[in-house]
């Protein structure tokens, strides 16, 4: 089987699910004839027609709300946000309407809200965001953020089949840089299960999305230069989070570094740290440390963006500190 990119893997999942289930349809801005800003939906219009590949007005709250209404009636909408930064325009709809529908009204809301996320691409403050933590706090939503092409496809298929709303964050830095060979058959990756990206015994790096690849690069250097055996856990799903995988790696290495690209304060690393405290504090040999973005809007200039975002060298530095602790 040939390798395909992370982006092509997402498209492959969309095509397979639309072919499998006629209730699946796509909505978003410029996703039809243009194929989407990043061409994720390229070719879908030709194959499935404009009833199932719907170009919308610029109205994130409008079409996210419409997706919810269609989902109540048994449809399975997949909504593209042109950049995930614009998910804030639909924050009310997602947190107040969609997330509560099952609980307060027993209305199913099976829908996927997907979009290009993340930085390292000189996108500036409004085309680089990682807003996952803003939704982690909302019961009723699910959040996935794949790091590999295989997971991008398998999680998309799981998200479309899920009975609840899944926020599907796609890292645009990985779109064309990461490739994989898709497993054969109906490749579905279950939501809520982490993946061990690298086995190790001296310390654990818990991360997700683009920083999985930064962590793996750092782990190589730490092995080569320091003889450290570093385990890398790729969470893949943030809500629900795989607590068992987190506990298992803490009990194995006793030292934990959490890495995420999002800003620090109120970020997901804080939540993971609290869970470690509650569930396996007794197994720690050192405080849980974090490598994150600085708490600033993401600036445009390369020198500024590189300074704000976590780099491989940051992970190496903090991991060495943690190993010595």
């Amino acid at each position, binding site marked *: 089987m040939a390798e395909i990119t992370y982006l092509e893997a997402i498209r492959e999942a969309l095509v397979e699910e639309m072919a499998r289930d006629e209730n699946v*349809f796509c909505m978003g801005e410029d996703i039809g004839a243009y194929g989407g800003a990043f061409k994720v939906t390229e070719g879908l219009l030709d194959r499935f027609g404009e*009833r*199932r590949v*719907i170009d*919308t*007005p610029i*109205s994130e*709250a*409008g*079409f*996210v*709300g*419409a*997706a*919810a*209404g*269609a*989902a*109540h*009636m*048994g*449809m399975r*909408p997949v909504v593209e946000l042109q950049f995930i930064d614009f998910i804030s325009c639909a924050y*009310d*709809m997602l947190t*107040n*309407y969609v997330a*509560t529908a*099952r*609980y*307060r*009204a*027993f*209305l*199913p809301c099976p829908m996927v809200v997907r979009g290009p996320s993340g930085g390292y691409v000189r996108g500036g403050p409004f085309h680089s965001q990682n807003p996952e933590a803003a939704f982690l706090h909302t*019961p*009723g939503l*699910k959040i996935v953020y794949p790091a590999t092409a295989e997971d991008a496809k398998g999680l998309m298929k799981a998200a479309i089949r*899920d*009975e*609840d709303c899944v926020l599907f964050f796609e890292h645009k830095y990985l779109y064309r840089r990461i490739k994989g060979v898709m497993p054969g058959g109906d490749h579905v990756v279950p939501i809520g299960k982490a993946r061990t990206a690298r086995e190790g015994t001296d310390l654990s790096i818990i991360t997700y999305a683009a920083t999985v690849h930064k962590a793996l690069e750092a782990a190589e250097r730490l092995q080569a230069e320091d003889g450290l055996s570093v385990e890398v856990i790729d969470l893949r799903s943030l809500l*629900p989070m795989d607590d068992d995988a987190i506990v298992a790696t803490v009990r194995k290495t006793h030292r934990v570094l959490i890495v995420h690209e999002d800003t620090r304060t109120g970020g997901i690393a804080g939540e993971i740290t609290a869970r470690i405290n*509650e*569930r*396996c*504090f*007794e*197994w720690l040999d050192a405080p849980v440390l974090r490598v994150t973005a600085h708490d600033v809007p993401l600036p445009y200039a390369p020198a500024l963006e590189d300074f704000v975002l976590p780099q491989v060298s940051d992970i190496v530095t903090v991991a060495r500190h943690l190993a010595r602790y």
Partner: protein
Amino acid sequence: MDAPVDLSASLAAGVGGRRPTPVGLPVQGNYAARLTRAQKLELYRWMRLTRSLEERLVALYRQTKVVGGLFRSLGQEADACGSAYALERRDIMSPLIRNLGSMLVKGATPTEILKQYMAKGDSPTRGRELNIHFGDLDRGFVGQISHLGDMVPVMAGVALSFKLRGEDRVVLVYVGDGATSTGAFHEGINFAAVQKVPLVCIVENNGYAYSTPTEKQTAARAYVDKAPGYGIPGVVADGNDVLATYEVTRAAVDRARAGGGPTLIELVTYRRKGHAEHDNQSYVPDGEIEWWAANNDPIDRYIRWLGQHEHVTADEFAALDADVLAQIDRATDEAEASGFPEPVDCLDGIYADPPALAPHWYRDGVRSAVERNERPASWGTHDG
């Protein structure tokens, strides 16, 4: 239909700055005229049930048996009941807080309403949501949320599903005058218009959004004037004339069903009670509420009309009213007899999978987190 009511003298006398009710506006089609006498009496019964049920809720509220706020639709029963009466059972609507009447017409029962307000465990939302915030797709209504305007995009999506599947069904969404100022209203109507989905949107203009009057809500001459901006038809009707509200809604519903796309309807009415029971309406000009109660009560008007045109007798009205009260009495007994929800019921159904959450460990009443966490053998020795 009704003889036009001349409001000019009253307005000149200073009963608020409300635009006169557009009584006697020409309406297209002849739907109301085709209603049978029995159907016209049924409309009366829905309006009476709405008002009497709310009066019962006031009594229960004063006994603190209604545990949250109480929202009245006094004076607006015609617009709610008449418009919902234009729907088929298979059609779906989303009511607003003053559309108790619409929900009753669409099949919600007084028992359900009472249990909702009293937060009972076997209420439609099992004590999770308040008042008339509940739905049932089988009977064709979707529960609203408090974020005004949000139901417009959602219901546009319900209508989109009908269009995509070629289903012969129509969607009706109610908003108040205040919700027309929201972004969600704009995005939803625009989406529906572009997609030409079978959606009818009713703006219930009752003069006030909480305390905010029309002139502070919009600079438009009328809410219906927003329709041309979306490229859809707009129609305004007297919201206190139940047959007029039925007429205009039915025409819009039929148009939507035939593939004609959305219509914006403004029903002009008046909110005689406060936003909720706690609201003393200090912001309302003197005499305004009293004028509407005396001169433009939708039930009084309809009683007169039915007497003149259908020769409905006082005895017939008395029998209908007694039947309504008996129904409410039975519903009250049933609602009062049912219990409150089990506390742990709050933890299920956030997701389909997992089906329920576990309570926090300190609510478990079993062991503390410290006791139940496994520890390495060296724990606490500090011998490193």
